[in-house]
């Protein structure tokens, strides 16, 4: 399809975004084309700002505007609890719940031998240092509930248990609003194993 050169360049860049195909990229490009110059500049500036100001927190490895990040720099949070997660976006998902008040540690991946990711590729040494130095009493391992996430959880648990710290794993079971009939066997089995007294 014929497009002016600058429009096809924009489409070419937009199509690189996750979940954006050729048609969606064209729609987005024409939306930007129709928007006011001010709006387009705001979008361009936001993209440049995010690349210019975002950095990795030297304590928890998450992404933030400042180093240390807002969470690591907040003295009001629970200093005795540390939640171990795979990626920075998991932190935002947990923070959205508003139910956890401790600190975080981002591993920057998960053990996955098929992808060539081993213990040396994750931020496990940093985690051990924090537990030893910061007087952590409980480590909550919140890696994804799949084979790689479980293996990572067990690996970390075996490694840090000698440090006399309580190690817990987030619960697994049935999602809210779901239907037992449609739950898969493994989830249903795990939900029985992790049942609670009420």
């Amino acid at each position, binding site marked *: 399809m014929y497009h002016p050169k600058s429009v096809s360049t924009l489409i070419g860049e937009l199509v690189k975004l*996750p*979940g954006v195909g050729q048609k969606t990229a064209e729609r987005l490009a024409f939306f930007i084309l129709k928007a006011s110059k001010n709006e387009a500049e705001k979008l361009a500036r936001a993209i440049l700002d995010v690349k210019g100001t975002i950095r990795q927190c030297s304590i928890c490895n998450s992404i933030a505007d400042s180093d240390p990040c807002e969470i690591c720099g907040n003295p009001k949070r629970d200093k005795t609890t540390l939640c171990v997660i795979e990626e920075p976006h998991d932190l935002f998902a947990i923070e959205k719940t508003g139910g956890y008040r401790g600190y975080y540690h981002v591993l920057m991946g998960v*053990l*996955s*031998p*098929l*992808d*060539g990711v*081993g*213990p*040396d590729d994750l931020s496990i040494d940093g985690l051990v240092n924090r537990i030893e130095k910061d007087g952590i009493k409980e480590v909550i391992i919140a890696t994804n509930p*799949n*084979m*790689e996430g*479980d*293996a990572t959880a*067990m*690996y970390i648990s075996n490694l840090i248990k000698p440090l006399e710290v309580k190690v817990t794993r987030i619960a697994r079971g049935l*999602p809210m*609003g*779901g239907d037992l009939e*449609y*739950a*898969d*066997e*493994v*989830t249903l089995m795990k939900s029985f194993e992790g049942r609670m007294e009420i």
Partner: protein
Amino acid sequence: MPLYHTAAVVLRRRNFGEADRIITFFTHDFGKIKCIAKGSRRFKSKLSGNLEPFTFLRIIYFGKENQNIYQINSCDIIRSFHKIGEDYKRLSICSYIVELIDTMFKEKDPNRELLGLLLSIFSLIEESSDVDTVLRIFEVRFLSLLGYKPALDVCVRCNRPVDRVIRFNLIKGGIICKNCFRNTRHEIEISRGALNFIKKSLTIDLSMMGRLKIPKGLEKGIREMLHSSLSIRIGKRLKSYELLISNHSRNS
């Protein structure tokens, strides 16, 4: 579009798009195939918990006959092998096994003997405390399934019976007698104990595999000999093997 029903083991999976996954299966009837599992990364998907690596399933999928990627319609677990993921060493070993199969088998090339071997090996790895021996048995049987069964009765050069074995030729895949021995890097030393272990690995009934043990002191020699034999056939380095070796050196 036809619907296909078969039993399959999940070899590997990778994320695709917003919430989908592409799964590589080794199926009972059609060999290795790739399927897209739409929405399977969402917690509420009926596929989500079933498509973990190494799971043995009954699957229904559809697509045109000559397609490269099919679409999964539904799946039911026959056996999950979820205990493999509870230990990093077991996970590393099983990852190496599936990477070997994924590398060496092309798509739509059924091999029921391999599927049976794979299921027995996963089951043993889940239960056995000596997972290294189980892996060695798999490597021997896998070489044999690929058509490279180690020749252990007569010299691969002169075809004469060998009374005192000293070398194993990695390219020819068999033993060499003292008259035919040439000093090349493809002819490695091998002990009588190692040869006996490989012989037993080839013939032992799958249900008895757990009883076989590698004689003390021969672990390293057998590991290196089998890995070199496989490497020559694979022609590339496997990521999972590199990790397996680095774990080994970290623990020893």
